């Protein structure tokens, strides 16, 4: 197998993935509901989504989420992630709320 063929295989993999994404967008795939501005703000929901976003953008960049863990170590996990992923203070607070809704 030639190295160039391997490179081509990777490009095909990337192309297929991007095509799937484009197809999904073009054929009306599942889209998130538009926010209702008239609805009262749900503080708990906001914290969960903000924390979930931070988790997805920082922790999930390197590894998958664990199946579950004891709530007694959530603070330690957040402290450790703050160092490893260089999280800001705001991010750690939101992540803490996400782990302990």
């Amino acid at each position, binding site marked *: *197998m030639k*190295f160039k063929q*391997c*490179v081509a*295989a*990777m490009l095909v*993999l*990337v192309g297929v*993935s*991007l095509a*799937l*994404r484009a197809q*999904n967008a073009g054929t009306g795939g599942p889209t998130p509901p538009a926010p209702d501005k008239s609805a009262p703000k749900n503080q708990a929901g906001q914290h969960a989504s903000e924390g979930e*976003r931070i988790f997805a*953008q920082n922790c999930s*960049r*390197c*590894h*998958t989420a*664990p*199946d579950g*863990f*004891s*709530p*007694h*170590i*959530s*603070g*330690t*996990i957040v*402290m*450790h992630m*703050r*160092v*490893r992923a*260089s*999280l*800001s*203070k*705001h*991010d750690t607070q939101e992540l*803490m709320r996400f782990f*302990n809704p």
Partner: protein
Amino acid sequence: MQRLRKNLTTCGGALTRLVASIAAMTVGSCLVAAQQIPLISGGAGFLSSTNGGQTSYLPIIEPLLAAPIGSHLLIETRASAVQSWFPYSPGQNGYPGYNHVYSLGLTYLQADYLASSHVTIVGGSFLIPFGTYNERLSPVWINNLQDGPLISSLGTMSTGTGVGGMVRGSAISRRKYSVDYKAYFSALDKNKKFNAERSSGGQASVYLPEKRLEVGLSYNRLLQGIHENFYGAHVWWEPKDTNLWLRSEFARGHHAQGYWVEADYRSDKFHGLDSWVGRIEPVFRMQQTFQRDQAASDGLSLFNTQRVDFGLDYNLKHNTRILTSYSRRFAPNGGNENIWETGIVYRFLFPVWKGK
């Protein structure tokens, strides 16, 4: 696996004493918050690799202990225990067989002081920040492929760890972008347990959350012998709503340079990521290394090398992964070879003691 063997040093007694002292220190600190019980995390796995018809086996466990002391101080350490079984050629009796080597060592042991919302001060033995592999992807339960990139030794001073201090943190954090930084200094340490070279360097990266794009630059300098410079750059991208991750890294040392590009994908098109199809994770990595001179290799092969890895991982329930891959290495002078690897890895995470 070769890198693992190289990095580990035997220190069984010292490891036990260190872990015991850390545990005593954390138990002694009576102001532990309800959610800050020390934890043990890490991975355990059984890996096999067939290279040129020779199969070796590698049972491995990498536990990590993270113990907060109050709200500003975190002690963390990672150990690695490896039993490596590898075949030897038929001896005088004419029978082939297996040799095995056991190694146990601390990968790092550091104290993190959260000085402010933007500054964390690290002291002790730490993973050298350069590129992304050493700090982020080297744990056995994270890496998508068993072997690290060929250039993983560039910029990490051959030991992978430094002994000294580091300042790191989030310089700017906004909803649309964030900037992280790390700067370290390591002293020369010939101690067998925490071997380190005298060096310094740093890293800065920008992350755009909406684009899921991260770009970073690294620079490290060896401060002994021939003072060598190492330059690195990395780009990570996860196109939105695709579950496709693209990771790439370039590193240039005094004697060699190279790059790697990795793509891995999980589909949520068939009942989500937790369906049996969604748990399948194809991985592809390509990499090249180039010699800049023949004086030394910077830990790389002495010949220009190309390698491709085709992996197929399966993410089982209960934090378990099956890793399989086929790799082809291209090198001059008969250096071409096939590498088949399989393994199973379990990730664990639990508190040191039961909380109230």
